[in-house]
């Protein structure tokens, strides 16, 4: 195939792949943030439950 045709279609394919990489990186950031928030919620719940449990044990 002609090198110019290959170059033109290669540019389009490269742009599509680049976009997939960008979306993948953004999704990874969202996943990281969601994980962080989940851990924060779990820690807060654990801290809330802890005094209740220690209070019961003291009684």
């Amino acid at each position, binding site marked *: 195939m002609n090198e*110019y045709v290959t170059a033109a*279609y290669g540019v*389009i394919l490269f742009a599509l792949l680049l*976009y997939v990489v960008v*979306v993948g990186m*953004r999704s990874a950031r*969202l996943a990281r*943030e969601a994980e962080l928030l989940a851990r924060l919620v779990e820690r*807060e719940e654990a801290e809330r439950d802890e005094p209740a449990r220690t209070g019961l044990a003291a009684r």
Partner: protein
Amino acid sequence: MSSTTDARPARRLAVTGVVTGALLALSVYGVFFVAPEDADQGIIQKIFYFHVAIAMVALLAFLVAAIEGIRYLRDRDPRHDEVSCICVGIGLAFSVLVVITGSIWAKASWGTWWVWTDPRLVTFVIVLLLYAAYFVLRSSADGERQARYSAIYSVAAFASVPLSFYSVRVARSFVHPVVFNQDGANMPDSMLAWFVVGQIAMIGVFLTILQLELIQRRADRALRRVKARLEAAA
């Protein structure tokens, strides 16, 4: 308040993505293995199918951006501003692709990467630069002002789109060919059919990217809301 979330955007994205992928594969097959070679340009003419389809979709994206800009100015609904901004981004990215693929085609066909005397090429670059300035303007303001300025700019910048579209017809371009005119398409049906398939596939790419961006922004907003609530509670 419902505890379930709306799954329709994800389903729509899946359907659009699958259909677009199938259409892209079909159009690449058709362009390279079924459509006849151009008698004048030979295999180089194959660039035309995606080059023109991408250019049309870039202009379509700018049209949607302008319509959403008008809708924002009327309703002040931030969702319209969001769609308008995404469409300008897609249109800009597609315009860059048009310029690159066009330059490659020009080098193969005319022996030069760029012709500054051609009205189509120059006006298209003007459109590209105008829409690049959209993001400069957008980054200079915040909140409601950002959305309002962006909406007004997206509508005003759209005036350059017909200028680019008709420049080649009015100025009687010396180099850039006019494929579609008042008499219809200037090519055989066997080429036109595959061009139409490629054009629909490119519109599918535009819709897929638009939906993907909207879903990502929705997820980002939801995470920020949760973060803000947790920070306020701490």
